[in-house]
């Protein structure tokens, strides 16, 4: 009975803290403008199914995709066992699903074990890749400190959770003398021979509690971590940009202003106008931008394909996402601080290095769009501060005066026809 109370209390506390974290995140995301991306629901379901559930954009790097798939499938399927853990914990039972599932139970548990071992192998492979690999995208300077620690914590935790599962089965196996014929715990059980039944029981229970508390802790760790993508991947892909890839969404406020300029009788509806053009800070961005930032798992495929980054420029699309997330966190903690996303987190040098080539957007396995943020911040620089590089100002002046980025007269546009 005490165990049940402890279990229920822990479960309640863990659940409550997680709920509070989600509410805190919602508050953070609510700082942004709405994205207006709830149209075309059928298409959104499709994108979410293909990209998030179906891992549709992972395959460009087959080896990473394979190991990631193991961890993903393993995580989803093994977590079905959490249902049993919850029931056992709350009701004080032991393997409550064994009877209802009948002859299916052992094969299912066996599959969990196989997957558990596969997940351990995949996590170890990922750890080795981080320790000894030379993959540039995992070594960038923006990962130094928390992002790299975060990555390691996630992998260690997953290994611990899986090992606990195996030890739990093995201890039970050892005490019951092979009544549950699971392949891996059978092997492990042989290492536990000679331990008294009481101690085996203690080991089993400890492993069970480690697994349960581990899951609760991991759940509450997610909001601090790049690992949040396991949940946010779904809403994030739902809020994907569905308009043409090459199109920047038009600024209605600007259209209104121009129309009013051309036709003095036109009275624009300015109730929805943003407080300024472009983005200087979080409140200027739209909802999906922030969701993108929290969904980013810092894999660096974007940065790896970015022409500016590959040629040594300061810009890294991944860092744009990390900076955005950091800035949201900063504002949640202290809404009154006097910093901004621009300059304090993302520098002008980064923004002007972008070629808008869309490689980062194409590369992201979760449809994150760093380019959207870059363009909005450039809009702020140009339209609010008039502080573009001088050559860009000259280009804009030319377009304005003579309809071309160079200083040629528009009247001469047809001259090539007459030239040899």
């Amino acid at each position, binding site marked *: 009975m005490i165990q049940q109370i402890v279990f229920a209390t822990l479960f309640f506390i863990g659940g409550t803290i997680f709920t509070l974290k989600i509410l805190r995140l919602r508050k953070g995301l609510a700082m942004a403008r709405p994205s207006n991306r709830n149209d075309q629901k059928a298409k959104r379901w499709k994108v979410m199914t293909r990209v998030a559930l179906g891992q549709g954009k992972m395959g460009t790097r087959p080896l990473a995709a394979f190991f990631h798939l193991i961890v993903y499938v393993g995580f989803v399927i093994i977590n079905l066992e959490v249902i049993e853990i919850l029931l056992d914990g709350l009701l004080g039972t032991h393997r409550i699903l064994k009877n209802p599932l009948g002859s299916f139970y052992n094969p299912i548990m066996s599959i969990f074990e196989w997957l558990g071992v596969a997940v351990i192998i995949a996590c170890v492979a990922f750890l080795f890749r981080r320790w000894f690999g030379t993959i540039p995208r995992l070594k960038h300077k923006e990962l130094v400190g928390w992002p790299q620690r975060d990555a390691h914590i996630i992998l260690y935790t997953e290994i611990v959770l899986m090992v606990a599962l195996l030890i739990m089965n093995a201890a039970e196996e050892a005490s019951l003398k092979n009544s549950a014929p699971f392949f891996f715990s059978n092997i492990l059980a042989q290492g536990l021979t000679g331990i008294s039944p009481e101690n085996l029981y203690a080991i089993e229970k400890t492993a069970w509690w480690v697994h349960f508390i581990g899951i609760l802790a991991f759940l509450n760790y997610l909001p601090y971590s790049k690992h949040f993508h396991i949940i946010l991947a779904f809403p994030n892909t739902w809020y994907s940009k569905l308009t043409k890839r090459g199109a920047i969404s038009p600024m209605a406020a600007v259209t209104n202003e121009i129309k009013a300029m051309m036709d003095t009788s036109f009275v624009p509806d300015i109730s929805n106008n943003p407080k300024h053009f472009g983005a200087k800070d979080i409140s200027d961005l739209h909802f999906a931008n922030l969701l993108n930032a929290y969904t980013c798992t810092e894999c660096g495929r974007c940065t790896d394909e970015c022409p500016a980054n590959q040629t040594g420029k*300061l810009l890294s699309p991944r860092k744009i996402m990390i900076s955005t997330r950091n800035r949201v966190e900063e504002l949640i903690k202290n809404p009154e601080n006097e910093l901004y996303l621009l300059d304090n987190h993302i520098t002008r040098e980064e923004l002007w290095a972008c070629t808008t080539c869309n490689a980062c957007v194409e590369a992201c396995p979760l449809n994150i769009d760093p380019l959207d943020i870059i363009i909005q911040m450039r809009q702020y620089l140009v339209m609010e501060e008039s502080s573009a590089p001088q050559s860009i100002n000259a*280009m804009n002046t030319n377009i304005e005066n003579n309809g071309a980025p160079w200083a040629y007269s528009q009247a001469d546009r047809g*001259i090539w026809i007459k030239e040899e």
Partner: protein
Amino acid sequence: MSELISIPTLAEMTAKNETPDILFWVGCAGSFDDRAKKITKAFARLLMRAEIKFAVLGAEESCSGDPARRAGNEFLYQMQALANIETLNTYKVQRIVTTCPHCFNTLKNEYPELGGKYEVFHHTQFLKTLLEEGKLKVEGGAFKGKRVVFHDPCYLGRMNGEYEAPRKVLSALESELIEMKRCKQKGLCCGAGGSQMFKEPEKGVIDINLERSKEALASDPQIIATGCPFCNTMISDGVKHFNQEGKVQVLDIAEAISQADDL
């Protein structure tokens, strides 16, 4: 190659009560840049050769607004776009072909939201159709067996998913088409997009156009083909930087087809 060509403007054509099958949107580079003008002329010759009734806007054409928009000047972009749309709609233009992927992307994907709805083609798409319909016939000629590497323009490839048309047109040359490692979806930008063409690059270890040119040259081509006047400039500069301009030609697909045909 160098005889005068006669191309009507849309105004002239309209004055004669005629309508073109398609409008050739020349773009700023195609109108003013000496290197890009050759691409413009090559494509115009191909259109004439295929007996396509086409016109240009001439002095009535203006920058599509792409570089302004990508540089963050939404106001200037919309001014340009709305003015162009007014011109195009006044002439009731329905079909447009352009040799510039940036104009192509803006006209095709961004003008509709401001009231400009047209059927827009990149010239490689249009050439592909002409070849398929037999309106244009090409034999490899000078290009037969030559090693050609194609550089995907971002605004044609990644932005518009068009990887096939330029390759299909190139294959008509009976040349040996080779691919760089970073091609198609993973194609490396030439460094000109996002209005980078008009400014100095940020500090780095190498300029993007040199990085790309180095990669293209490493595939040991005789010709580097592009479908964008800006890519053409960037990569031509890169080829010069590596002192390869005597050995490797940088050509637009329209130029290659036009030269193969010995027009």
